[in-house]
């Protein structure tokens, strides 16, 4: 859905239009759910978070001033809801720590073969949730660096750093698996 159309829906939702709310839900439910499950693996918990996101959309629609894209605003709400779940359940994880030393040789494995063998998928799953969420926003949601930064509320430089660390950890994992180490 184009942003100007989404903003028109938001204007109607702010006036209590439930038809517009349903239209926005149908447009963004799937990508938001996918984004939430990239961090929360429990589908029931993800359902609850998605519900909370859209309840907040309904309640806070009048506060949306249109300065950011609707999509960025929605994903930002989802990100905060997920992080709240993490905090409440005392699940913690470090986000931007440098990866452990990665062998420079890691960069020379056969990626096509690794992909075919399922190593890429396996290794992406082993990444920290903060890395997976940024990867999801960049490669599936096709957000700009600025949009990702706004969504996750971090500087653009940190977005790039997070992707860089994710890539190094991924290569380290793939190399290990390709050499039969199964990290």
């Amino acid at each position, binding site marked *: 859905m184009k942003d100007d159309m989404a903003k028109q829906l938001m204007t109607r939702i*702010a*006036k*209590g239009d*439930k038809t517009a*709310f*349903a239209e926005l*839900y*149908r447009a963004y*439910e*799937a*990508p938001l*759910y*996918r984004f939430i*499950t990239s961090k929360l693996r429990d*589908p029931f918990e993800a*359902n609850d978070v*998605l*519900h909370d996101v*859209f*309840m907040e959309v*309904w309640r806070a629609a*009048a*506060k949306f*001033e249109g300065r950011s894209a609707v999509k960025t605003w929605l994903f930002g709400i989802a990100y905060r809801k997920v992080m709240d779940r993490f905090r409440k359940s005392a699940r913690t994880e470090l986000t931007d720590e440098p990866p452990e030393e990665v062998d420079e040789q890691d*960069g*020379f494995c056969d*990626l096509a073969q*690794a*992909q075919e063998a399922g190593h*890429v*998928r396996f290794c*992406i799953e082993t990444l920290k949730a903060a890395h997976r969420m940024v*990867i*999801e926003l*960049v*490669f*599936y949601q*096709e*957000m*700009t*660096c*600025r949009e990702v930064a706004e969504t996750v509320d971090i500087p*653009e*430089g940190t977005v*790039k*750093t997070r*992707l*860089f660390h*994710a*890539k190094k950890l*991924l*290569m380290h994992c793939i190399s290990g698996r390709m050499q039969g180490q199964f990290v």
Partner: protein
Amino acid sequence: MTTSDEDDDLGLEGLLPFYVNGTLDADDRARVDAALAEDADLAAQLAVYRSMSSDVTARETANTPGEFGLARLMRDIDAEEKTTPPQIQMQSPLWRYAAAVALALLVLQTAVVMLAPDQGFELAGGGTGAGDGPALTVAFRSDAAEAQIRDALLGLDLEIVSGPSAIGLYTLRALDDQAAAEAVSQLDQMDDLIESVELEE
């Protein structure tokens, strides 16, 4: 996209994920293209990001709540509306400006009242008609009708400036000494209306 690699340490490699997802602006894309043509290591890094992208985009989205999720939302919204009074939409800039102007006027009015010389209280009718003319103290009969009193006061250009007191006395004000003397004379003859009338010193 307006991202710049000058403010971070990653250089052009920091742009590679956004080169892959197609969100770089033309200038940044041209810079990455030029660098890739000459830098085999950068090209190798690009291949890793492409591999990540193709894996992520190939994944199917899990079953979403779909229409059941929407029905649950509508149910909760309806329940919330029944328990919460509708909110007035105060987010419009117009409301904010109106509120700010009203507040400024209130502050200004308060300042004027507080800073003005103390002139004491004045009745709403003060300053018109009788002004600071001589005062009369009058006791109306207990059975006097309001219409009779009004007619008498209007006919004699008198204003009630205070009263009734604890013992039922009213203070009236006349335009001038002559009018006050005339009023005393007239009121003194209204036995069905006036119990007593006296010109104050």
